[in-house]
């Protein structure tokens, strides 16, 4: 057997958070779940690559566009948004999937680390790391698509281009891709800029909220978390839509809906803050749910 590392759990160490313990917990978790994480990333990359290659085969690369845009970018960014949201939901659902059975919960709850550390390890892996990993997958898949087009499609050299990183980060909600700036005045350009920012915000809100909601769902529904959370979210959306419609009818807000939908910087800030608060609240709720988690399902 290999030499045993020094203990990370002396009696005097911080009971809420200790960096050596966090590091050990992270190493243990990655070692245990690393293979599944890697396989799921490979699967994501494979799906993205297949979709990008199919889209490339459908795209005409005979004539280069004067605006310097590759004709596939819009499709790629649309697919990125869809897959990113689905992927984020799966990541959220996987966050506590290792606590589905009684034995798994017993192992997780009695491991000598604090709830904060147990939560943070999963959070770091399934939220920021997962997001970065997905964006890298998109970038790599696009690079392979670029190489494929260059080598396999004739006369494509002048029109094929790599998807720029800002396009990946905003999921395609950029001026060059969605607006014809050459024909716009200053007011129009500002409006287009805010509209794109609004769409980018919506895309990111979908991703982050789905991730947080499914993470919460994986704690509430230890088994079949994805299905049960999806049904719950659908029902919640139906109830909220019903309430919105009813309140519009009752309080005569129908006219208010007809008011200009043009975005303003303030409205976007409010939307961003609201999304941020909802996401943070969902993760806080997950943390407290984990703290109260028990070895036996009482639901």
């Amino acid at each position, binding site marked *: 057997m290999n030499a045993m590392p020094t*203990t990370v759990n*002396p009696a005097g*160490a911080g009971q809420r958070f200790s960096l050596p313990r966090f590091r050990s917990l992270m190493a243990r978790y990655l*070692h245990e779940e690393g293979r599944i994480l890697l396989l799921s990333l490979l699967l994501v990359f494979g799906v993205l690559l297949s979709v990008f290659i199919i889209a490339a085969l459908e795209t005409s690369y005979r004539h280069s566009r004067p605006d310097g845009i590759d004709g596939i970018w819009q499709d790629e960014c649309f697919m990125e948004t869809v897959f990113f949201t689905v992927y984020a939901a799966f990541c959220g659902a996987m966050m506590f999937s290792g606590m589905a059975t*009684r034995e798994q919960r*017993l192992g997780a709850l*009695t*491991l*000598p680390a*604090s709830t904060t550390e147990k939560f943070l390890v999963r959070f770091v892996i399934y939220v920021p790391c997962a997001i970065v990993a997905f964006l890298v997958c998109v970038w790599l898949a696009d690079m392979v698509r670029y190489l494929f087009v260059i080598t396999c499609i004739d006369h494509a050299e002048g029109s094929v281009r790599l998807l720029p990183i800002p396009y990946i980060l905003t999921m395609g909600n950029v001026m060059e891709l969605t607006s014809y700036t050459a024909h716009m005045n200053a007011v129009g350009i500002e409006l287009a800029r805010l509209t794109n920012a609004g769409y980018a915000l919506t895309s990111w809100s979908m991703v982050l909220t789905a991730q947080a909601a499914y993470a919460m769902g994986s704690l509430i529904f230890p088994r079949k978390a994805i299905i049960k959370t999806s049904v719950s979210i659908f029902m919640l959306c139906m109830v909220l839509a019903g309430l919105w419609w009813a309140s519009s009818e009752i309080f005569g807000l129908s006219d208010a809906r007809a008011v200009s939908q043009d975005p303003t910087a303030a409205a976007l800030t409010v939307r961003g803050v609201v999304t941020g608060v909802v996401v943070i609240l969902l993760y806080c709720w997950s943390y407290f749910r984990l703290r109260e988690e028990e070895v036996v399902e009482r639901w």
Partner: protein
Amino acid sequence: MLDIENLVYRYRRKGPPVLDGFSLRLESGGIYGLLGPNGAGKSTLLYLITGALTPLEGRVTLNGTDTRRRLPATLSDIYIVGEETLMPRMRLSEYVRHTAPFYPRFRREVMDKCLETFGMTADVRMNNLSMGQKKKIALSFALACDTPVLLMDEPTNGLDIPAKAAFRSLCAELMTDERIIIISTHQVRDLDQLLDHVLMMNDRRLVLDRTVAELQSKLSFARGVSREVAENSLAYIRTPGGYDVMNPATAGEEESELNLELLFNTTLSDPERINKLLNP
């Protein structure tokens, strides 16, 4: 010292309580056998001790700290081997490397010794083992952690006969005055030579809490006696070799070997009678 104070626990809000006003104090240096019929709450009690369940009332404290707070320092003092052993997808040597640092008193030489006694090596993939092999690994790791409180739920389930004997000898050898070992089991015959304290649960409460020495001094057991002798005894059960009987010990009588199965059956059917006999 492990203190269980007035525990109340139920699985459903309106369901019957599994434990109702359950109190117990366990001193270090004892191997406690936790016996009871199915559904008596033995596993629930073990989970409550580890802090993996939250009591509706009461609390469990280890050296004054509430175990439900799940503080890392308290968790590193308690190890539980569940009835079913779930193994991660890694080699045992890797598992030890990644998990042992969380237990400050872990001793690798003990782990090696336990594995050797059970006929196992550290070079195995944990998820590819049979149920008995998984149990051997779980017990080896648990014993090597050297925690002041070691809880085992049906530890001999799935073990072959030599492994049961090996388990008994390892427990006896690794027991110290600073340690509390609680073994919840139905397999009383596997462990009756190992225990030095008997706890019996039934009907949401503790019906017997005695040391083996006390039981042996106040009760006398005999095996393979005739039917006439059995019918005149305090309690008896029929066995292939005749009748096993239990009687109050008489003055000057030599201590007999504890028959846990007979004691268990008699205590469950009439706990008051046994307790009166033990507390005249």
